[in-house]
């Protein structure tokens, strides 16, 4: 599992991904932690098959009891099917996830972890002195979907928005936006169901000051590539399966 510190200030953001040992037919995913002195928030913890490498990687940065919070952008198995295992590993943790997905996500196993239901209009997660904003991103692609924004680090964890299916060993950041487009095109056209929802999301995100856009699959975007993505996405027709 590769680790990449993408922000280092009063707190840290670390990205985990590109696990070379992952089973072949499982989609590659990015996981993130936001780490303060005493606490860690694990963002989109990942699927069952990634649990062991993910936890082993985190143990390089923090003890297990410091993982006090989990966030699930939506309900997909590649996001949160490892929940039952985290439920056994974490002595005192909360899962922040959509209210409407609670009955579904609990099927993965959630007996000791406290489910903190996020209403449709979002909210915040307080991690010591760090306040993260939960940004509604409904129908992007899940019916209830949230992104996470850190105004201090200027990082937006954008879930499946911005995702691309990459070869193993690809760089962590987009280096040439134009050549990256074809890796994203079909994914967004097929997975994002609604042009209306897409426009609402873009409008919301344009209001934010984003230095890094960090999706759940593929490379991250930084600097001007964030705006390039928003402009490109605005012009893309999505929902092509109907």
């Amino acid at each position: 599992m590769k680790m990449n510190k993408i922000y280092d200030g009063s707190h840290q953001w670390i990205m985990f991904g590109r696990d070379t040992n992952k089973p072949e037919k499982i989609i590659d995913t990015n996981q993130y932690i936001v780490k303060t002195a005493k606490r860690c928030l694990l963002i989109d913890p990942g699927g069952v098959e990634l649990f062991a490498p993910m936890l082993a990687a985190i143990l390089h940065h923090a003890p297990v009891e410091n993982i006090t919070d989990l966030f699930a952008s939506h309900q997909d198995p590649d996001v949160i099917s490892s929940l039952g295992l985290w439920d056994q590993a974490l002595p005192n943790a909360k899962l922040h996830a959509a209210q409407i997905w609670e009955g579904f996500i609990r099927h993965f196993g959630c007996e000791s972890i406290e489910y903190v239901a996020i209403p449709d209009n979002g909210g915040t997660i307080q991690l010591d002195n760090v306040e993260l904003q939960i940004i509604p991103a409904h129908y992007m692609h899940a019916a209830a979907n949230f992104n996470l924004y850190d105004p201090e680090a200027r990082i937006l964890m954008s879930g499946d928005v911005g995702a691309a299916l990459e070869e193993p060993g690809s760089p962590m950041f987009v280096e040439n936006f134009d050549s990256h487009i074809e890796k994203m095109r079909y994914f967004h056209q097929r997975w994002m169901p609604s042009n209306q929802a897409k426009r609402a999301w873009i409008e919301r995100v344009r209001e934010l000051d984003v230095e890094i856009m960090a999706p759940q699959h593929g490379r991250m975007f930084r600097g001007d590539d964030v705006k390039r993505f928003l402009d490109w996405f605005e012009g893309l027709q999505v929902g092509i399966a109907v």
Partner: protein
Amino acid sequence: MSTHETRSHFVAVASIAAELSAVMDVAKEISLAAANAKAIAFRAGEKAKGFQPITDFINELAKDTIELVDDINEHAFLLYQLTVKDYRFSEANKRFEQVRQITGEAPFRESMTEPYQQVRYKMQECRKKFNIDISRLQEQLAEVMHPARAARVIAANSRIEASQAGEYLQSLQAVAESVDHAAQIIHEKVQKCRSALSAIDLAQ
């Protein structure tokens, strides 16, 4: 416990639930047979005088069987929940072991000691409880065999009484046959449940 053994526990407990559901249906049929027999015996009057108290026995047997099966069903469901817990603990144990193997020199490696011990402890406690509950379920299944045996005896007596009932002979014999048949089915299905339970042997 291997994945194969875990799967066999799920299958065993699920198959017990399925067999018990069939036993419940059959017990309800006995109840119906008893009601029919009562009606026939009433119409037959003196000719089926000996049959009338038998219908009450049949009804009692059906009620006892239904109550016992209800209890067993509840118990089987709790057992099923235990198999799910056991699966989760086993899976966590396996994955925590993988973490230990790949953590290398991670500075916070030792912080996993307690969760690892906790999950192993929970797994062992779950299995102890499972074994106790399996024994209890075996006892309950043995209890269900008693009304089933009694039903066969009653069916035999019913045939004798039915032979005295003149033109009601066929109807009352049909009742006797259905009670006997139902009792046999209950016996077979409960035997299957007991065999399925005997095949479960959780390692401590």
